[in-house]
């Protein structure tokens, strides 16, 4: 990893905690060359228009992801409903054919509130930690969390209404999520109750899917309502501590999206579909510090940008392995 990418790596961690991405102060010579070449290049503009006209909109990764998300949640439901006992429990804690799996944020809440850690809790947390380090951290958000799917649909409604100029996206300060993370951790520690778990839409939805609906779904509905009419993806973007916990795990994950500068036309389609567009600041004209830039840890690896990019400049990569798709 070059010194420039190392610097960017650290910057992206700050960005995850809420800092605004900034213009790089220095750009590598190879990237510099491409930036220069692209400047006002008429051939390139013609090429861009051509690519655009022939670009096929794919939903490959979205479909794979939705299928995975639905399958994972269905496996919980069926394990109980049909008593096949493959994945028992809910997203907060479960047993996969006997192996303990415990959601990292829920485990943290319980450890801080109860201040006593039994072996099963430790084993389950360790297993899940390892799993998501390997799979990409916030991959949990977009590939497993049931609230993510509902929020994605709510986002579609929001964008439709925004296009009709009926609503506007009220953005907030992204540092709020870090503040919430700290507040909920402190609340658990100080009060001895798992305060966040009472309002976690992930937990509420997961239990509703497995054990049947309840009044708690009203809170989830309220959140979706807020996201449709006021603020795009507000819960995931500005509030959810689960996302930050998994984001931290994702810092060291080998699974990530990689950006290749040479073919990019810098049209910003990827940033429009992205849940966390601040991780894609590198695609803005003149920002990429190297010819290949890995996307930061706040990325949920949802693949929407990969599907959307007309030039294939964004793709999944497993560090150390050959590139995927």
């Amino acid at each position, binding site marked *: 990893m070059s010194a420039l990418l190392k610097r960017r790596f650290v910057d992206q961690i700050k960005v995850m905690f809420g800092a605004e991405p900034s213009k790089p102060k220095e750009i590598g010579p190879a990237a510099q060359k491409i930036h220069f070449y692209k*400047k006002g290049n008429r051939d390139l503009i013609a090429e861009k228009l051509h690519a655009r006209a022939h670009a096929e909109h794919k939903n490959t990764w979205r479909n794979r992801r939705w299928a995975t998300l639905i399958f994972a949640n269905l496996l919980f439901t069926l394990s*109980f409903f049909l008593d096949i006992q493959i994945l028992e429990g809910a997203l907060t804690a479960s*047993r996969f054919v006997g192996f303990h799996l415990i959601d990292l944020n829920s485990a943290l809440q319980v450890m801080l*509130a*109860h201040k006593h850690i039994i072996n099963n809790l430790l084993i389950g947390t360790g297993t899940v930690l390892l799993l998501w380090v390997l799979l990409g951290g916030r991959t949990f958000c977009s590939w497993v969390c049931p609230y993510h799917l509902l929020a994605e649909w709510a986002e579609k409604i929001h964008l439709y209404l925004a296009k009709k100029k009926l609503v506007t996206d*009220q953005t*907030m300060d992204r540092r709020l999520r870090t503040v919430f993370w700290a507040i909920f951790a402190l609340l658990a520690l100080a009060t001895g109750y798992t305060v966040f778990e009472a309002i976690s839409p992930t937990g509420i939805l997961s239990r509703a899917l497995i*054990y049947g609906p309840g009044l*708690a779904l009203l809170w989830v509905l309220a959140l979706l309502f807020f996201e449709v009419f006021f603020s795009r993806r507000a819960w995931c973007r500005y509030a959810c501590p689960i996302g930050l916990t998994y984001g931290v795990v994702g810092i060291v994950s080998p699974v990530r999206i990689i950006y290749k500068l040479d073919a990019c036309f810098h049209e910003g389609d990827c940033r429009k579909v992205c849940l966390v567009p601040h991780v894609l600041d590198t695609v803005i004209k003149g920002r990429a510090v190297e010819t290949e830039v890995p996307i930061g840890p706040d990325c949920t690896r949802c693949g929407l940008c990969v599907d959307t990019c007309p030039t294939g400049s964004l793709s999944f990569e497993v560090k150390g392995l050959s590139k995927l798709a």
Partner: protein
Amino acid sequence: MSENEIESDRENGGNTPRKPTPEGKPAVSIAKRQTNRRRVLRTILLTGGVLGAALSGFLPLVYAQKKRLRPPGALDEKDFLGSCIKCGQCVQVCPVSAIKLADLVDGMGVGTPYIDPRNQACDFSCDAVQCILACPTGSLTYHKPDFLPVRPGAALAAKPILIAKEKDAEPTLNMHERIGVARLTRPEACLAIQGKGFKGQTRGPDFKGQLRYMAVDRWKPVKISSHPYDLAECDLCVRECPVKGAISIETVFAPDGSKRKSPVVHEPCVGCGVCEMVCPVEPTAISIEAGEVWKS
């Protein structure tokens, strides 16, 4: 000159440097400042909203409306609420579906397991305490960690003996504390005290509750409604109690000096709630006081 510098030069309109404000920060237009201020306000509002929702979870605790009967092996309420991860694995292993998960109105208790014994009591038809085994966080536990105190009267004098497996090599349940105590809350309604018998389905034909009848099948609990009774003197609560020595029919003296038969609860009562479930009178004459300790 790097490309970056060229770009920033252009932004600044050639060679003239941008005029710095007195604080040395770049000038911000009024419109932009207004947008920023609104954004800060919105952020504060969202903080308030989410925190308000989260803290509203404390309300049910402050008002402590109802004490719920927790599954066997549950820690004391405060510790239970702090340690339960709300996964429902205890729900999944219960053969009679006695364990339910609490809803939004229970605040911090949302998603925590409880038993409503009148509808479905814990009859230990799993022959052990499977729910404790399933619990990943130790909210339900065989042995309380040392730093958590045991309230006087909560500890059982001995491990409870399960009548159903009395003849097994290991007849006891691995339980050290009771989850509640049965109490004859409405003695005036009790059929035994009135000297009455009971004939038919206790709780009626539509009652969904299940119970293990050793005479029917040791491993398969059946609906109570499928098991009608014909008793000259009602002793249902004693007859169906799964724990040895927890309750018996005793002769007592009424205030007017007359001899009466009455169910009497003893120290081995763990608070499972079978007596409450099978009591044929409405509302029940005997009920579980959740989280209560034994007072001799």
